């Protein structure tokens, strides 16, 4: 049972992750009345990029060259930390929710530092926005995870999945408020509307795409896989902690694909019905999320005192 859950965690996180952004794009096209690419489009792009030669930027150094590998390594680490079912044993990287904060920040540091190395103004514009929004994302992330950790009495993610299972935990509003906050974290981390627009390549509006401008070939393939893996990490957390789920491990594993598909459809729906908001308003939106999570903490405290 544990072996299956670990296998799904590794195969899903490493190999199936590109399917998630593919599904979002596919459904988004359908909702907008277009035929759109198949959900397998990200794999095609990865194969195409892997076959192409990378081009170095004149004058760029080791930080630029290492950044894609370091980013991908930090996402591999995040995939190892996030379990797909309750009770999954550690894979050598621990199971801690708060550790994810630093692990995801490492990838962000690598890519944004690389945009200083190539001295590209558009890359730096995206980098500065990404890092500014990340301040508010991180605060919201930590508070929404705190709600789940308080409900489950631990920060061990595998135990949190078990501790938030069943219907009893939903009798108080705390987990629901944490879920609202985490939804905003999902939108920010995956770079989707209303915070970022993954389809845009217009220099003046992009956030996450900006620092990737100077990369090509296998470097870009690694960065695109990292973006897909970030979808996996936050969507699995959303599916297995912040959506109602059953305590049984088999049921959790069987339900995961369905839940991920539903969440992808939800993101597609959100992208269809909302426009990208002004960049300076994104922190306010995330602050609303942080306030919701704080309210979740308060309602948990009120309930047990």
């Amino acid at each position, binding site marked *: 049972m544990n072996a299956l859950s670990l296998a799904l965690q590794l195969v899903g996180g490493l190999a199936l992750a590109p399917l998630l952004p593919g599904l979002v794009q596919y459904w988004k096209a359908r909702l907008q009345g277009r035929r759109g690419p198949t959900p397998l489009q990200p794999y095609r792009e990865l194969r195409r990029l892997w076959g192409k030669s990378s081009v170095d930027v004149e004058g760029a150094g080791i930080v630029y060259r290492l950044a894609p590998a370091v980013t991908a390594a930090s996402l591999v680490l995040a995939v190892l930390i996030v379990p797909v079912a309750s009770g999954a044993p550690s894979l050598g990287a621990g199971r801690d929710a708060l550790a994810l*904060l630093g692990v995801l920040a490492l990838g962000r540091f690598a890519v944004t530092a690389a945009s*200083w190395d190539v001295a590209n*103004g558009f890359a730096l514009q995206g980098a500065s926005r990404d890092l500014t929004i990340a301040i508010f994302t991180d605060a919201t992330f930590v508070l929404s995870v705190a709600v789940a950790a308080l409900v489950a009495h631990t920060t061990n993610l595998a135990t949190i999945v078990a501790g938030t299972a069943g219907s009893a935990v939903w009798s108080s509003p705390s987990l629901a408020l944490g879920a609202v906050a985490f939804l905003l974290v999902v939108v920010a981390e995956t770079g989707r509307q209303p915070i970022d627009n993954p389809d845009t390549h217009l220099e003046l509006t992009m956030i996450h795409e900006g620092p990737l401008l100077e990369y090509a070939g296998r470097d870009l393939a690694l960065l695109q896989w990292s973006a897909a893996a970030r979808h996996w990490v936050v969507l699995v957390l959303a599916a297995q902690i912040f959506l109602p789920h059953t305590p049984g491990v088999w049921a959790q594993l069987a339900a995961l694909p369905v839940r991920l598909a539903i969440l992808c459809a939800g993101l597609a729906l959100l992208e269809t019905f909302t426009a990208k908001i002004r960049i300076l308003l994104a922190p306010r939106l995330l602050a609303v999320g942080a306030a919701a999570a704080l309210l979740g903490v308060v309602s948990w405290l009120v309930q047990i005192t």
Partner: protein
Amino acid sequence: MTARLQPVAAAAIGVFGFSMLATGTTLGSGFTGAFTPRFGVDGLTAFFLGVLGLVTAPTLAFAARYLEPGRRGRITSVLTGVFVLVLAEVVCARDPLTFLAGWELMTLLPAAIILVSRSDDEARRTVFLYLAITHLAGAFTWVAVLLAAHAGALDSTGAVAQGSGLQIAIALTALVGMGTKAGVMPMHSWLPRAHPIAPAPVSALMSGVMIKVAIYGLVRVLVDWLGPLPLSVGILVLALGALSAVGGVVYALFQHDLKRLLAFHSIENIGIIVLGLGACLVLRSRGDETWAAIALAAALLHTLNHAVFKALLFLGAGAFERATGTVEIDRLGGLLRRLPWTGGAFLVGSLAIAGLPPFNGFASEWVTLQALLHVPAAGHLGDGVAGALALAALAATAALAVLCFVKVTGLVLLGPPRSEAVAAATERPLPMRAAVVSLAGACVVLGVAPGLLLGSLVSLAPWPAALPTAIGLHLPGTGSLPTLGIALVLVAVTGVLVVARGRRAAAPAPTWASGQLVEPSLLWTSAGFTKPLRLVLAGVLRPERTIEVRATRGVVQEVAYSGRVPQHLDEQLLAPAVRVALRGAAHARRLQTGHLGTYVAYLIALVLVLLTVAKVGLIG
């Protein structure tokens, strides 16, 4: 000769401290309230001696090559050595008198060193301000220590009744006096002024060790001498920590002088340490002794980690200053290629201070986050909300530090050089290189195996607490942080991916910027990179900006831009205090006539008043 002996002696102090901590032995006298000189070493002192040695040895080796040969350099070197001894004396003192004497010398010596190395007007004014602020605050330290000694808190713990007015008075005066010395906001004004003008090795010692000795004082008073404090004091400490952490890093972002930027980061990291201390106080008053001890250990671990990476960064800044002649971050660039050893070590320090794995800042920030999460987990409404807010503040602080150090590494180490002098910069001599590289090594070791130390730090709490020793961090009720495993995964996967990507066949191409050439005048600056945050926080920071356009006959000739982020705490809090003090001094000056007769009259009047008071029986 002395220059070579100094680092060896410092290293010996460090080895002595850590071995005493590991074996858990004590030496010499215990604390006494009597006014006779006593010295001793217990676990807490041993730990701070270890920190002192670990940071001081490379710093003094660096200083030997950094300081100019000649009289000034020699005097600075000697005073720096004395400064280190005084710092060791403060942590070893076991009676109020030697402690306070050492405390005052610790304030005075950096002032002397700054004045020896620089004697311009700006330096004199800054030193005066530094002495004024730390001496006024020093009075509070005297009050706290003397009150504690008088109440017998030094001789036996529990001498001060829990929740009594005396206990709160001692705690508050210690917070003001020692908090000022540590640079806790809003008492921090001296720190970003004094640190940048000192020679780089002295800045490293001030930021790395001196403000940590103030933390030692706070731990001694609040945790050791006073016993469990009322909840409100713990929450106050949490609030001060959160303010320092967020405030320090936000103002750091808008600095253009590398050393001043690092000084503001010291305020931030002191804030993180104080957050751990606050969590310890709150959890202790709630009776959760296991987690209170872990919170204390988190504060101490971050004390050590900050000492290491901040000394590294200040020494790196000093090396860059010597190599290029400036510490203006908008005028550096590309130093990683020109100074690979110093630059590489500086990059490691930047990753560590930004709290990124697998370096030491990540480990101690993780333990602090866990400790803060246990404040709401104790299940009480008021302190629970305070703990959750502090948790969010620490997460935001870490992300702000990432923003700041992406900017610093980008402007200093990466990209094209921004001036001729920077383009011609070369690597520094071996002792300077070795100093920063050894500190970078310490950042890695403490990041990969923090668990070896955390166990001993947990047992430093004055109540029984223990944690099994491991390489990684395995705390009860967490998903644990196997730091070694994390480091191995990161290194192995990065290595595999670098090999898998293979060599490049195509020739390098210029940066693409919409078809425009990237010219030096188009390069991004610090102000540009922080603009989104400046706009988001405009309501709080109230930045000032002026744009002057000079046009002749409708044709724009010149556009001048200037902007700054004012220090509101300084201008709203410190400036009025200075005005009141100056007005008071103007009144007091009227007493000074300069005539001998007047002074004799004052003396006679004083004697008469004293005699009358004695006669009535108010004194004597």
